[in-house]
């Protein structure tokens, strides 16, 4: 596999040199690997970008863990991870990172007679449900938040992801931020030791379980909620407002998150402070070398990301991803200039 990537890299380098000598538009190959969450939008972007420029982007959605391993091994031009790396980790192998696109993690329920988007939850309540402390739908804690909605005396069936995933990471990161008990008992990672519930494989597995089990609650990516018209809920943010998960509120979270104080964009934007910010918003991070072995490929990759961040919003919205807010795009591009040596 390593040799294969080296060959691809060599071919890319040759092509780049060729293109530099002969013509401006050559067949440069950019390879990336990692997060499955960005795969749909990356393939859409790369197809459009390829039609426009002839640059080919090969992305392997092998999971964030795999993506980090591949970029560390130097087999790919960029890695993509749902979880940001610590600045110290990045420095250890001479890399930098930046966010690429926003998504959201949305709690969904299966309750007869409850309209989508009507049920309200607070973060600590969600944590208590997932801890197995609140077990009935007519628990006073839920009833108090939802006057006017008839809640059955039914057991709550908790559904979570069984596979390690960025969706889980952002979900439990949020629960850790709002519930001290969750933080000490369970903690945060791409997969955790769940105190209760059943595990579905992938968003589709969780969606299927929630669809089948009456009285269940689960969490899935926003695009999945929208495309499958699932029964989503509102979540109270840190400003005290109940927020509906939608593009606008995710973007508000990314815009109000404290990027200015985050080295290497090392920030998980859950529980963002904005008044309209949806509290379980998430970004995907791209990891690249500061001094790449094949500068041409990195340059091609950065050109691609620049195009995607600035002109790729339409494609992102079509696939129910949320583009980064323009000021954040500006600071990302500034960080490229400061950190990444493409040698041209």
């Amino acid at each position, binding site marked *: 596999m390593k040799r294969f990537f080296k060959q691809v890299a060599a071919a890319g380098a040759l092509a780049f040199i060729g293109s530099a000598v002969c013509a401006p538009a050559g067949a440069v190959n950019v390879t990336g690997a990692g997060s*499955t969450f960005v795969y749909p939008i990356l393939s859409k972007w790369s197809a459009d970008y390829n039609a426009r420029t002839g640059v080919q982007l090969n992305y392997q959605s*092998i*999971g*964030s*863990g*795999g993506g*980090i391993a591949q970029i560390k091994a130097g087999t790919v031009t960029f890695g993509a991870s749902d979880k940001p790396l610590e600045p110290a980790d990045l420095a250890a192998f001479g890399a930098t990172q930046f966010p690429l696109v926003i998504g959201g993690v949305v709690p969904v329920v299966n309750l007869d007679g409850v309209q989508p988007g009507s049920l309200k939850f607070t973060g600590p309540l969600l944590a208590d449900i997932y801890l197995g402390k609140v077990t009935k739908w007519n628990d006073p804690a839920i009833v108090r938040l939802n006057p006017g909605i008839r809640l059955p005396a039914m*057991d709550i*069936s908790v559904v979570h992801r*069984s*596979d*390690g*995933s*960025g969706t889980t990471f952002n979900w439990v990161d949020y629960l850790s931020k709002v519930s001290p008990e969750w933080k000490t008992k*369970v*903690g*945060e*990672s*791409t*997969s*955790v*030791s*769940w105190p209760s*519930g*059943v*595990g*579905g*494989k992938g968003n589709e*597995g969780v969606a*299927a*379980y929630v669809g*089948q*089990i009456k009285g269940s609650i689960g969490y899935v990516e926003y695009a999945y909620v929208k495309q499958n018209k699932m029964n989503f809920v509102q979540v109270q943010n840190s400003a005290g407002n109940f927020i509906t998960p939608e593009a606008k509120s995710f973007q508000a979270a990314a815009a109000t998150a404290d990027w200015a104080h985050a080295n290497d964009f090392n920030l998980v934007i859950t529980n963002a402070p904005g008044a309209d910010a949806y509290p379980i918003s998430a970004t995907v991070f791209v990891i690249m070398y500061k001094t790449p072995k094949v500068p041409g490929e990195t340059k091609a990759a950065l050109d691609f990301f620049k195009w995607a961040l600035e002109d790729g919003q339409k494609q992102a919205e079509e696939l129910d991803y949320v583009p980064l807010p323009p000021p954040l795009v500006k600071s990302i591009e500034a960080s490229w200039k400061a950190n990444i040596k493409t040698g041209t």
Partner: protein
Amino acid sequence: MVARVLPYQLRMRHEARVEVVFGLLTRSCAYLVLALLAGVLLTLIYGSWPALKTFKLAFLTREVWDPVAGQFGALAPLYGTVVTSLIAMLLAVPFAFGAAIFLTETCPMWLRTPIATCIELLAGVPSIVYGLWGLFLFAPVLQQTLQPWLIAHLGPIPGIGRLFRGPPFGIGLLTAGLVLAIMVLPFITAVMREVFRATPTSLKEAAYGLGATQWEVVWHVVVPNARAGIIGAIMLGLGRALGETMAVTFVAGNAQNISVSLLAPGTTISAAIANEFTEAVGPLYLSALIALGLILFLLTLSIIAAARLMLLRLNARGPRL
């Protein structure tokens, strides 16, 4: 053509050389398989070393699986693997036995080949298809029919009732065991059919000649004659059930803990690996998953080896297999 030109001795020498090369070639092919098996085993041991060094033998007896704290134990997936496979065997073996007897003894001749072909086709269905079918069709049906019935009728019984309590999720160890039963049924049936067919016709005819009924012939002649083969067939099915991944991942519920109730979600070794491998960050986590793989490897290896031994014993006795 060339051979005719050469003197007799040269031709002999040439043939001897070809013989040696041919022997070496086939021998290296066979040794390659052994080398691969040894390679897999060594890789698994090497990969699982950090986890085995950290947790020692307690890895086998701990129920905890906490990636955040870096604490891992194989007991829950091991339990799930054994329980789902046992359920599958309990259900599949009697059906396979009945079907195999029917196909070799009582079935009209013209119907034998079509049914046998269908069984082979069933064995060829990819496991992901069973998984999707189990998740989207079978589990909802179980949730609404079999599971409420079990909870209402068997749940209140002291002792055994504890196996059938809790909410009907539709998914869980029982569902996984049922799907596995359907998956291994064709394998066991096919092998059992072969071993029943290996019964010498002379023996059966002699029994019929003595006035034995069909039942008596099956029970007193065919089955005792095929005993080792039956056990071999069961073990082959068991080997497959233990290692089955995708179908189980879809319907087992994937909870890393041990519940007494069969209706509760659980996990198996292969499902845990498939679920967590891609996002296993950190050497210890990865190593713990590889250690799970090592356990499964040794488990299936020993079962298939036992099955082979049984079938070897049958080979020594029966002339047709």
